[in-house]
């Protein structure tokens, strides 16, 4: 179908209720991230609901209680939120400046959805932290975070790499690596 690159979603779906249609679209994209293979669905039908939900979840789980000392803090909600969106915007700008042919919102959509593995890692880490602290605890968390980090990178690369000219792919992928590395670090060093 010949729809514009920027249109969010297929308007000709047969589902009568827009909410169910949107939720299905978001769920479909989550599946695409978890099992990344070459497909244009994420790029064509971009939406920002999924990234928003993931970002809010991540920020809520990463913030520390307010009883702690001010300077003694992990990231606050606003800090995580700003880092994720500011980071995603910067990577998108970088990609476009290097000559990529992906649109602004498509790139934000991909980067946001590919945070899903890291959100899962944070959930697992919080569960593991309920157990007895110790080196095994740390090793398990480290392993989970590393695996999910690699998964995020692979998923986002599968979608983003094709939009860059071949001699600049590494230049466009490196900021994505840095972005997910920083988020992984925040997850790994989280201590309730």
């Amino acid at each position, binding site marked *: 179908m010949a729809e514009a690159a920027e249109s969010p979603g297929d308007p000709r779906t047969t589902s009568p209720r827009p909410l169910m249609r949107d939720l299905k679209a978001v769920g479909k994209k989550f599946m695409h991230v978890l099992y990344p293979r070459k497909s244009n669905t994420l790029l064509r039908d971009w939406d920002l609901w999924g990234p928003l939900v993931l970002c809010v979840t991540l920020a809520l789980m990463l913030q520390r209680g307010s009883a702690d*000392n001010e300077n003694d803090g992990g990231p606050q909600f606003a800090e995580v939120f700003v880092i994720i969106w500011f980071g995603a915007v910067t990577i998108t700008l970088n990609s476009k400046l290097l000559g990529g042919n992906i649109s602004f919102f498509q790139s934000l959509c991909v980067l946001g959805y590919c945070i899903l593995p890291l959100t899962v890692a944070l959930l697992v880490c919080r569960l593991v932290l309920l157990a007895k602290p110790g080196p095994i605890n740390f090793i398990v968390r480290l392993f989970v975070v590393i695996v999910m980090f690699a998964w995020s990178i692979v998923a986002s690369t599968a979608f983003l790499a094709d939009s860059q000219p071949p*001699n600049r792919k590494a230049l466009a992928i490196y900021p994505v690596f840095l972005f997910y590395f920083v988020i992984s670090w*925040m997850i790994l060093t989280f201590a309730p």
Partner: protein
Amino acid sequence: MAAADELAFHEFEEATNLLAETPNVTTVSRSDQRPPEGHVAVAVDPGGSYGAEDEVESDKTALLQEQQQQPGFWTFSYYQSFFDVDTSQVLDRIKGSLLPRPGHSFVRHHLRNRPDLYGPFWICATLAFVLAITGNLTVVLAQRTDPSIHYSPQFHKVTVAGITIYCYAWLVPLALWAFLQWRKGVRERMGPYTFLETVCFYGYSLFIFIPTVVLWLIPVPWLQWLFGALALALSAAGLVFTLWPIVREDTRLVASVLLSAVVLLHALLAMGCKPLPLEHMAPTHQNTPPHPHGVLTPTPPRPTTA
């Protein structure tokens, strides 16, 4: 079968120097004098201008005019011209900054009139994050030996480190460029560097601090000083060799003051990043860990125990 090496593009030394002296010139190849293959040169009288040859000429003039018109700074393509680099070029520039050679200016030999902003921007970003992360790691490693230390991510130090590094990477080149422009009248031979070229070589010179900051995790003081001195020497040498062709035609006083100011500022940045020796830190209570990395990152608190 020609070796791949022979087929690679080799820049000539004299072309580089000629380019240095007249940065705005465009090179014209000899084949431009004849009409290219496939075009018929129709002889026309001086008055008329319908010939294919004239068409070719007017096409070329239009193209040259297009190239000379820079897009305005409000257009996206203006900024795109600063990111017009390939992976191999960025890697080559990083290598050039790691291994400075006397007589080889980074700007002339690696930038070749095509400065980019990709390198400086992402090198500064990486350095800021690496500083924050190694600061965190220092606390974690210290906690393993002394469990009474209260661990905290100290997240806002990332913003402090980031702002400091970006300010250094933009304001110092700005000051340097402004100063060199002011002294422009003294120099006859070499044109000064543009602002972007200055920002570019400053940004690339910060690259060596990234592995150095990681190596500073090793808690052996003399090794830390050694790494710091090595990194500072390489980085400052790169800056000095790049600036030398510009300042050597100035008076000796101005040249030496300028070069020492550049090296001193660079040394201050290095000191700001380096972890302080642990004996100099005051014992701390659990809630307020002091600064481990000078001012830029958190330090492991070390309570005094007998």
